């Protein structure tokens, strides 16, 4: 990315933050909070997720058979099925159905799939009057915009904006103002359209192959009307919506509304096996008794492929097809919360999962405008009801985009400096951050000089124009003595120790924050352990974040080799940097052979995960000597579930611990340093700021340290192990 395009990206993001930011933020965070509450109250959440995941895996595996089965059943019921290979074909088919009716008015209930293929625009171009009946979609249609959220397409619009839009478009007798007035107006207006409609179009949340039923989940009731009032109903659904039968439906019904809005069930869950028995309503013959006996109901199921078969064959994009479009990944994403889908998404599909859909439908390059907004913070992962590894999809798509470019003119200058495994053509900024190990190593060998050089006037500008480090960010200082060189002089262990542990020395501990490493060593020795230190190695996290999967794989292999003997000896490897531990526990399974990854997962443990039970088992702590403290754990640490031991250790020492509860600090590795994302990063941090001022703060992740320092305009928050070590030494014996 050039400086110019970085500037354009920054401007676009700023723009969306100004127009959509406030409304998106409020609504999305609300949905997110509701979801957390409702999930917490639902005992079967995890088992439902497991079941849902398995059902989807099977269904996508068996997709060709399910398509055959559903076709058979819909036809036996008297309906028609058309499998459309792309959007154009699907649109043409629906057009033909409409032409056959000589129909003009179409009512349509919300469906992202029809949005994907531009069905409404297509029918309108051919002369039909098409009305969106979901109020959110209706707003979008009036405003001629694209949806900004999978579930709430218009949630970026405030009530005032909607009122202005309605008042301008319809010029009502007295101006509409309140949500109730706006709703009443839309109900009346769309109610009339439904009565005159010749054709009703819906999507489908699920399609049950063995009965030919479709399931529609809504709150407004518009899908019910669109499906059953006109005598012809067309349902357009992606082929991935098929599940075998009603027997597989239950976990999805438990999950979909909870994940979307935090409701235990949506207002309406329609199970339609069309053509339905409900009589059609002909409002042109108002006094004709309603009677189903002379019904000529017609039903068409259009199953859309549009790239999905290819996604099914793609081992990385395949998971996208498990998506039930609940939007939980959007709502739990700190970046999405600030900008919504108009910056973080494509025309139809937005947020974390948007990458998978857009890449599958339009190719990886189509995600260029937003794929980098995923920071791999992983906060969406535990929130996805079908357990899709969304950050991984984003990483893979990033990698595919990385290598599409022609080599940069300066590539041959940079190449010899960076030992990465990447093909040429990689963006210079990505390459810089992906090779942060080399940067730190070279910088550190000249540490005092580097620190001095960084403070020279003009250097900030140079870094901004070359590798896109925002000049408003201060760079962390390189330690004048690395951890490794300190260790060389401090290797002696207690004589009494009979257990050996290995400290995994990450780049940041070594080059930037050796204090946390030293504290770890002291604490472990206090606990009578013998400490060994692993060679300083990059874990692979940095290149992985840039989509440099080959380099990350190479580094993972080196780590595996370095840890092999300790793990074989069943001596635990203790990790200080939470983003590395999270990597060992999740992404390594994607980079390394299954067995190797499993060994690393089992053999590595967070420093405080390991230490806390030992502290607690020793009774001589004089607790109560402390005070209030805030602990901000890294987002990946929270997702991977090893935040708790830190809290317990601090509490055992007598601290009154508060944890921050925002999804992410916004720094997220290299993200916050990148000039195009600086403002977004600070806006995300804005939610954290009030929680980390006024009290002493601890932060476990390297990049969180940098963000908190700049947000609170204060000191670098220490790693919890530093405080634990200090308190332990002071308050015991």
């Amino acid at each position: 990315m050039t400086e110019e395009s970085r500037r354009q990206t920054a401007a676009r993001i700023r723009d969306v933050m100004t127009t959509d930011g406030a409304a998106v933020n409020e609504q999305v965070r609300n949905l997110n909070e509701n979801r957390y509450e409702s999930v917490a109250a639902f005992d079967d959440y995890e088992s439902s997720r497991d079941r849902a995941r398995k059902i989807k895996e099977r269904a996508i595996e068996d997709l060709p058979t399910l398509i055959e089965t559903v076709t058979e059943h819909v036809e036996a019921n008297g309906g028609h099925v058309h499998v459309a290979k792309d959007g154009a074909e699907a649109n043409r088919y629906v057009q033909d159905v409409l032409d056959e009716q000589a129909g003009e008015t179409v009512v349509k209930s919300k469906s992202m799939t029809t949005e994907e293929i531009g069905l409404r625009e297509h029918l309108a171009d051919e002369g039909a009057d098409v009305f969106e009946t979901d109020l959110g979609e209706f707003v979008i249609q009036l405003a001629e915009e694209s949806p900004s959220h999978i579930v709430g397409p218009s949630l970026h619009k405030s009530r005032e904006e909607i009122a202005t839009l309605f008042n301008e478009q319809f010029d009502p007798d007295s101006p509409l103002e309140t949500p109730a007035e706006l709703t009443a107006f839309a109900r009346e207006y769309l109610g009339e359209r439904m009565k005159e409609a010749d054709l009703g179009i819906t999507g489908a949340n699920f399609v049950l192959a063995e009965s030919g039923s479709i399931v529609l989940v809504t709150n407004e009731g518009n899908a019910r009307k669109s499906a059953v009032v006109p005598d012809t109903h067309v349902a357009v659904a992606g082929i991935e919506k098929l599940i075998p039968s009603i027997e597989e439906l239950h976990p999805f019904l438990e999950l979909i509304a909870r994940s979307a809005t935090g409701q235990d069930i949506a207002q309406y869950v329609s199970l339609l096996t069309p053509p339905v028995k409900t009589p059609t309503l002909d409002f042109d013959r108002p006094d004709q008794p309603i009677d189903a006996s002379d019904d000529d109901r017609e039903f068409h199921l259009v199953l859309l492929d549009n790239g999905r078969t290819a996604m099914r064959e793609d081992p990385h994009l395949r998971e996208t097809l498990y998506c039930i479009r609940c939007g939980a990944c959007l709502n739990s994403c700190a970046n999405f919360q600030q900008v919504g889908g108009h910056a973080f998404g494509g025309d139809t599909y937005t947020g974390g999962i948007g990458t998978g859909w857009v890449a599958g439908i339009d190719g990886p390059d189509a995600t260029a405008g937003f794929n980098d907004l995923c920071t791999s913070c992983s906060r969406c992962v535990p929130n996805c009801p079908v357990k899709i590894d969304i950050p991984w999809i984003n990483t893979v798509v990033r990698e595919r985009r990385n290598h599409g470019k022609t080599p940069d003119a300066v590539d041959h200058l940079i190449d010899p400096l960076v030992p990465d495994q990447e093909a040429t053509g990689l963006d210079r900024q990505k390459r810089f951050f992906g090779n942060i190990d080399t940067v730190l190593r070279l910088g550190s060998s000249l540490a005092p000089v580097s620190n001095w050089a960084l403070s020279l006037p003009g250097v900030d500008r140079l870094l901004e124009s070359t590798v896109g480090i925002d000049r408003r960010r201060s760079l962390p200082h390189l330690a004048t003595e690395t951890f490794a060189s300190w260790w060389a002089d401090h290797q002696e262990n207690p004589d009494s120790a009979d257990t050996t542990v290995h400290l995994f020395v990450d780049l940041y501990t070594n080059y930037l924050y050796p204090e946390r490493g030293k504290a770890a060593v002291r604490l472990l020795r206090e606990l009578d352990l013998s400490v060994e230190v692993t060679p300083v190695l990059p874990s692979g996290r940095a290149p992985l974040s840039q989509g440099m999967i080959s380099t990350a794989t190479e580094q993972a292999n080196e780590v595996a080799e370095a840890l092999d003997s300790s793990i074989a000896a069943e001596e635990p490897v203790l990790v200080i940097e939470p983003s590395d531990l999270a990597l060992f526990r999740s992404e390594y399974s994607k980079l390394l052979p299954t067995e190797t990854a499993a060994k690393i997962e089992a053999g590595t443990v967070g420093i405080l995960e390991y230490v806390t039970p030992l502290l607690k088992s020793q009774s001589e702590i004089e607790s109560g000597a402390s005070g209030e403290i805030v602990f901000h754990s890294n987002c990946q640490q929270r997702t991977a579930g090893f935040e708790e031991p830190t809290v317990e250790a601090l509490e055992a020492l007598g601290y009154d611990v508060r944890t921050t509860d925002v999804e992410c600090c916004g720094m997220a590795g290299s993200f916050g340093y990148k000039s195009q994302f600086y403002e977004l990063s600070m806006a995300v941090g804005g939610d954290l700021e009030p929680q980390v001022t006024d009290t002493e703060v601890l932060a476990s992740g390297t990049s969180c340290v940098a963000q908190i320092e700049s947000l609170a305009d204060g000191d670098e928050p220490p790693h919890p192990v530093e405080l634990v070590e200090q308190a332990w030494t002071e308050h015991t014996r």
Partner: protein
Amino acid sequence: MDAGAETTQFETAAADHDLAVTRTRAASFDSTLDGIVEYPAVGVSLPIDGVSLAETDVETTLTPRKLDAARTGVTPVSFGIATLGTVFIEGSADGAEPVSLFPERHVAVLAASDVCPELAAAVDRFGEELAAGPSSGVFATGPSATADMGGHVQGVHGPSEVHVIVVADR
């Protein structure tokens, strides 16, 4: 759980979802209904022993005009779900679907013995019907609602008020 306890659970859950619930017996059904219905009202016939709309002012010969003018729609429901306060309305040839959907008030008539303990059981129950032949219906929980107009509003394309009459039939 006996039917009484399930009805109680149904009532509590229904209240959480903004549904009003009234218990009655077949003998006092007509007067209970009359206290809840706002006229003009349309309805479809009720398959509960001893309960019928015949003696009430609810119109059962439907036309589009009557449906449009009605302020209340009265329908039977096939079953309810105790944990959710949900009712299942079968899409039948006599028009239960539009009658439950168009008027601003929906009165759902449920036999106490038709309260299923929870969603899973209710889905199974519909599954049995589906196995017997194509059938359709909707799990409806409270009034229709939207948050798309800048605030929570009840009564969008569907009813703004839902009232369940539970008829003790045992």
